[in-house]
């Protein structure tokens, strides 16, 4: 008797699947993001933005006449699991492109073992390790790798320029988070700052979630720096700042994008920061698409963006979808070749991230006219290594508020990089 029920259940389950698949023609895109594990909180919110993008495309008429379907898989923040999930998406669901993953360690494992050998496009919304650029330079990514999170290389140079030319600093101590983001940015800054002939007095890594950072701060204070460059996230950043201030550290501070947060400024205390902060942040963060996506997200989920890389995830889906539409693509190679056509063509009609915008994009593409997608996370200019480039904004803290003071264009940063003799 038990067996009969089991058989029934299995046949019902098996029967239901093909039915669902045959309902309409679908174009699948894979998503491998952490839904559980140490980055689960981030990943879940990020995936919601991917779903928003897919829903908007489908309301605008789908992709190549088909419904855009996201195939979501959980990476569990574990490389071995993520690699299997990606392989399954590529081989069994036949996705031509995968969005993911978040942490560089997981993205890299997928890239080297699944997407690059299978010629499938991979766009990561949150992996910032410079190792990807290196791999691309060696030709090992085959051009299938892209990322919508800005590379640390630009910001490191911009920060060094600000420290040298605007804050007029000669000696800076660096405390950085010991992960690919922290290491990448801190090392790049050190390269550029020392190229000016200035001194980095200390490079102190810190590990997350410690109750106190006294020993790191003490170490950074040796060598008598004029300023502190703190590369980290707001929670631990505030702890480090309090210990730096109470230990009598110099009161000029350099902050990167991750600390460009009003909450961080409040937690440290505006009176300590007013006029003492020089910050940088990838500047294209404020595009015309951003408020549209924010509003649409709120309408769909009832709350605003809460996590980093939300907009980057949205853009990853949007870019893939537009490239598929532009090239009538069903393969990774075709998508790879069309991504820059929809983001970089200066003659293209600007496309904003909304149902209306996507409808317009489909219409223009059908007429054979060029488009240029304006991302919610930036203008999305991918260089030949798949890294996104864009302007950097210099910010300061005035009366407890974050104020943008200057924008450095990609050309300007490239010029500085060249002048300093950096690659």
């Amino acid at each position: 008797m038990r067996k009969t029920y089991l058989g029934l259940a299995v046949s019902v389950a098996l029967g239901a699947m093909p039915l669902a698949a045959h309902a309409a023609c679908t174009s699948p895109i894979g998503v491998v993001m952490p839904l559980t594990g140490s980055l689960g909180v981030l990943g879940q919110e990020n995936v919601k933005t991917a779903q928003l993008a897919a829903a908007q495309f489908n309301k605008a008429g789908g992709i190549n006449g088909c419904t855009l379907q996201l195939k979501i898989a959980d990476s569990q923040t574990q490389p071995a699991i993520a690699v299997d999930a990606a392989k399954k998406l590529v081989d069994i669901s036949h996705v031509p492109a995968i969005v993911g993953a978040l942490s560089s360690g997981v993205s890299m494992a997928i890239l080297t073992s699944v997407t690059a050998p299978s010629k499938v496009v991979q766009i990561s919304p949150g992996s910032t390790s410079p190792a990807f650029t290196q791999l691309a330079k060696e030709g090992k990514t085959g051009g299938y790798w892209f990322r919508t999170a800005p590379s640390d290389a630009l910001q490191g140079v911009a920060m060094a320029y600000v420290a040298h030319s605007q804050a007029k600093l000669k000696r800076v101590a660096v405390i950085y988070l010991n992960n690919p983001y922290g290491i990448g940015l801190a090392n790049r800054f050190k390269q550029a700052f020392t190229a000016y002939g200035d001194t980095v007095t200390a490079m102190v890594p810190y590990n997350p979630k410690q109750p106190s950072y006294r020993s790191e701060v003490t170490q950074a204070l040796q060598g008598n720096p004029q300023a502190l460059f703190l590369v980290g996230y707001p929670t631990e950043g505030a702890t480090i700042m309090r210990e730096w201030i109470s230990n009598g550290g110099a009161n000029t501070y350099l902050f990167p994008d991750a600390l460009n947060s009003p909450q961080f400024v409040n937690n440290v205390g505006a009176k300590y920061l007013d006029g003492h902060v020089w910050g940088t942040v990838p500047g294209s963060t404020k595009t015309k698409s951003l408020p549209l996506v924010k509003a649409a997200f709120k309408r769909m989920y009832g709350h605003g963006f809460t996590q980093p890389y939300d907009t980057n995830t949205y853009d990853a889906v949007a870019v893939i979808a537009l490239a598929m539409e532009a090239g009538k693509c069903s393969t990774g190679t075709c998508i790879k070749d069309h991504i820059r056509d929809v983001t970089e063509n200066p003659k293209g009609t600007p496309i904003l991230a909304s149902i209306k915008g996507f409808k317009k994009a489909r219409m223009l593409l059908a007429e054979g006219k060029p488009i240029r997608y304006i991302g919610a996370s930036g203008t999305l200019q991918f260089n030949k290594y798949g890294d996104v480039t864009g302007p950097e904004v210099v910010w300061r803290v005035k009366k407890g508020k974050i104020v943008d003071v200057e924008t450095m264009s990609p050309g300007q940063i490239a010029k500085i990089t060249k002048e300093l003799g950096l690659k």
Partner: protein
Amino acid sequence: MIGWISYIVFFLILASIYAIMALGLNLQWGYTGLFNIGIVGFFAVGAYTFSILATPDQVGHLGGYNWPFLLALLGAMVMSGIVALIVGVPTLRLRDDYLAIATIGIAVSIQLIANNLSWLTGGPQGIYNIPQPLANYFSSNLGYNLFFLGMMMFILVLVYVGLERMVNSPWGRVLMAIREDETAAGSVGKNAFSYRLQSFVIGAVLMGLSGALYASFIKYISPTLFMPILTFQVWAMLIVGGSGSNLGAIVGAVLVWALWTGSGTVVQWLLPADIQVKGGAIQIIVIGLVLMLALLFRPRGLLGERKEVAAEETKSKISNIQ
């Protein structure tokens, strides 16, 4: 169809990498009763040693030795054996629980070293460009994976046959005797410490081998991989398959890996789109449920008929007397 074959080949390669680890654990726990909960530490030592020895020159970490595949594989095994020796000598003389604490501590330390000692391991950036054996001779990805699977099967059979011969030899019977009753084994002149150390080191060497093969197959390693969850996965494999049975360890590895990876897909298929982001949590529940059911209905695992050397006979004799 070709997609399914391609995926199954990929799946089996990873499953057999896990199976080698489960076999190593089976020697330690199944046959000798050593409670090693630091499997991932030895796996990491093997993976890093292989990567450092085999990769071409690269900035950011120690390397550039360009060793051939087999030699680097051997180096990885030797290095994990040495680490096991260092951990084993002070702890194996003590009671079981000390080994457990020492191994879990060592595994966490190794992960932290990998994350922080950048000149050696590349730190959080990891090591990429890890070479694969004979990669240039294959034009298609599937073709190469088929070759790799063949190699894995060969290694797995070699390890399996080797272990079977070892545990069925007098040496293996001593291990089981120590597992059942250390005092009794000692009273007939067997040096329990020495045998436990041998078993511990050989098991760790297999875990190191598994790490080296993983590094070569995925071509990239970073500290994110070497988390305690991996140790738990291998334990789950051995328990479901049946500890004390080498075949059980292999079967368990395939089944649990299928459950771990497959449950996610099934969950995502069945869930409506708007709650798919919660699918990950449901997947974890399914895995936990299956493990609990396995323990309830097959407490000794699917193939776990522990061969008890002395105990069974003694019991029957005692009952005869009564």
